[in-house]
């Protein structure tokens, strides 16, 4: 098959999948009440950040415990542009993507020299230090109080087409096109030469270097793309109402990593599954534990315990996550048939 034709097929496939995701969310949105609609908007937003981990850790083998901090970079960029310079939401989101990508470039320059535990520790320190910068330079970043921004009101032409739109639905409508676009970009990157290069670096750096791949440049590029994605997610996450250090805590970084691992680090479907899991799991646990008399102090820690155990169990019994388990199941059945 010619290169041109392969690319066309990959392009068509990713377009179809992104549209499918878009429609799936709209469909769910119509089934849900207001609370679950806002949760759905959260999923659409966080999915972008989880996809950045799929790229970084899953495809190129670099671990980051600081994606939440990069989300903060995106969030603060867009919020500052809106509140200080009076930019519109859409333009500020686009600019936030570029600012985060630039940040990713600097991060990548440092990260290309590091690997494994060094990278994990450094990004973890970053996850703690970056939100504290907002407190340190209080006059500029307004400290712990944070910057209030919001999604605003839906435009009239849209309400004319689809009727009355609630705030929850509007936040989903803003996030979803970006989510679909991010999915499209990630699918295309992973299924072409770029993705193969990343996987080669992940699996064996020496072999990749011998095959003519520039290791540092590849690693830096992954960081730029992943930071752009995380920054976009952070900008959208902030427009829910507030950009402040408490919105982007260290736990956010770990939650994103958990989502990616539970679903399967190397699979896009896994990223989607994992994001749904971490957003809806606390609600599910709350609903189940409402049937029992559990003191509130314990109930507060149940989601953390469940997610931690799930992460541990995944890593020990099935490191490829839900997506890997599904694949094994399919192989197993396939073998039985023959």
């Amino acid at each position, binding site marked *: 098959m010619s290169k041109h034709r392969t690319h066309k097929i990959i392009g068509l496939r990713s377009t179809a999948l992104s549209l499918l995701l878009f429609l799936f969310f709209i469909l769910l949105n119509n089934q849900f009440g207001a609370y679950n609609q806002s949760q759905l908007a959260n999923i659409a937003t966080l999915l972008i950040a989880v996809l950045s981990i799929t790229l970084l*850790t899953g495809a190129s*083998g*670099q*671990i980051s*415990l600081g994606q939440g901090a990069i989300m903060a970079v995106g969030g603060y960029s867009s919020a500052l542009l809106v509140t200080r310079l009076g930019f519109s939401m859409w333009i500020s989101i686009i600019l936030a993507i570029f600012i985060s990508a630039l940040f990713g470039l600097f991060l990548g320059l*440092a990260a290309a*020299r*590091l*690997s*494994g*535990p*060094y990278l*994990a*520790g*450094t990004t*973890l*320190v*970053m996850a*703690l*230090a970056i939100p*504290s*910068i907002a*407190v*340190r330079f209080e006059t500029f970043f307004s400290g712990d109080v944070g910057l209030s921004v919001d999604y605003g009101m839906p435009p009239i032409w849209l309400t004319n087409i689809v009727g009355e739109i609630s705030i929850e639905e509007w936040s989903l409508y803003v996030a979803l096109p970006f989510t679909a676009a991010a999915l499209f970009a990630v699918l295309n990157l992973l299924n072409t030469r770029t993705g193969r290069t990343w996987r080669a670096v*992940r*699996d*064996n*750096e020496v072999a990749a270097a011998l095959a003519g791949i520039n290791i540092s440049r590849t690693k830096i590029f992954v960081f730029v793309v992943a930071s752009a994605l995380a920054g976009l997610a952070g900008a959208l996450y902030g427009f829910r109402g507030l950009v402040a250090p408490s919105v982007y805590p*260290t736990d956010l970084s*770990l939650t994103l*990593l*958990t989502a990616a*691992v539970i679903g399967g*680090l*190397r699979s896009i479907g896994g990223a989607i599954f994992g994001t749904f899991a971490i957003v809806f799991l606390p609600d599910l646990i709350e609903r189940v534990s409402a049937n029992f008399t559990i003191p509130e*102090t*314990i109930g*507060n*820690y*149940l989601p*953390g*315990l469940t*997610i*931690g*155990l799930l*992460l*541990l169990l995944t*890593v*020990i019994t099935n*490191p*490829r996550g839900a997506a*890997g388990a599904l694949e094994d199941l399919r192989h197993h059945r396939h073998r039985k048939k023959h």
Partner: protein
Amino acid sequence: MNSFLTAFFSGTAQGAIYALVSLGLVLVWRGAGVVNFAQMGQAMFTTYIASQMIQHNNSYWSAFVVALICGALLGALVDLAIMRPLTSRKNSQLLNSQSMRTTIPVIASLGILGVLKALAGILWAGEERGFPSPVAPNAIKIGSTNLAITGFDLFVIGVVFAALVLTTIFFTKTGMGLAMRASALNPEVTRLSGIRVGSVRTLGWAISGTASSLAGLLVTPRTNLSPNTLDLLLIVGFTAAVVGGLSSLAGSVLGGFILGYVISFVNVYSAPENVFIAILVFLLLALFLRPQGILGSKEVRRV
């Protein structure tokens, strides 16, 4: 001058605690090739056990000893139950890739951290509580002038010094210490000379658990105790380990003291808000200027 002395002495005491944390990290890294991000979660857990014992009218020292033993047991348990099965899986496709072999244990240790925090929250309600110290945290007086050092600082420095001396004796004078150093340097050859590398590795986890549990006991009288209080200590300990050299035990202790002085001087001469940024800048500087650490040897660093 007085503020300089205050910074210096509190830096020494804090640095002693950081040295313990960083020593714990380096022990496991050398022995097992894993940076254990759950380490301070384990320490938090054992400090809660000590705190419970003291609340039930046991003496400070009996709680102290029990916490250290629990720290050793918990460290060994983490290795036996989680890390060993994880790294012995040879057939997994995911673990065949070079970068994933170091990444997966890191993720596992984060899972352990999450579980320990949630468990501590459930068992002990998760509110902040104080933790006693056997020595009053007042400045020592000679006549009527306050010295810049507190009794508690002296206590911390003394305990850590004793622990470091014991560790040094263990590694230089005992057969087990020699076996441990050997298996960190070359596990294959050590195995061939008839040493049970697996048990040695678990012992490393146990010692690391004890060291970090001691750090937890020494730091909580100042910071109070909650499931999240020791997170910062891990970050500082990691930075200290990188500064000193992840592969060097002496380096890790040195790194701990350096970090103690850096943080203490930033606290006194600048502002507490700057501490995080100072740590990040210091870590990045160390990584750029001397990635193998002050006492680390270049070829040992696994890149």
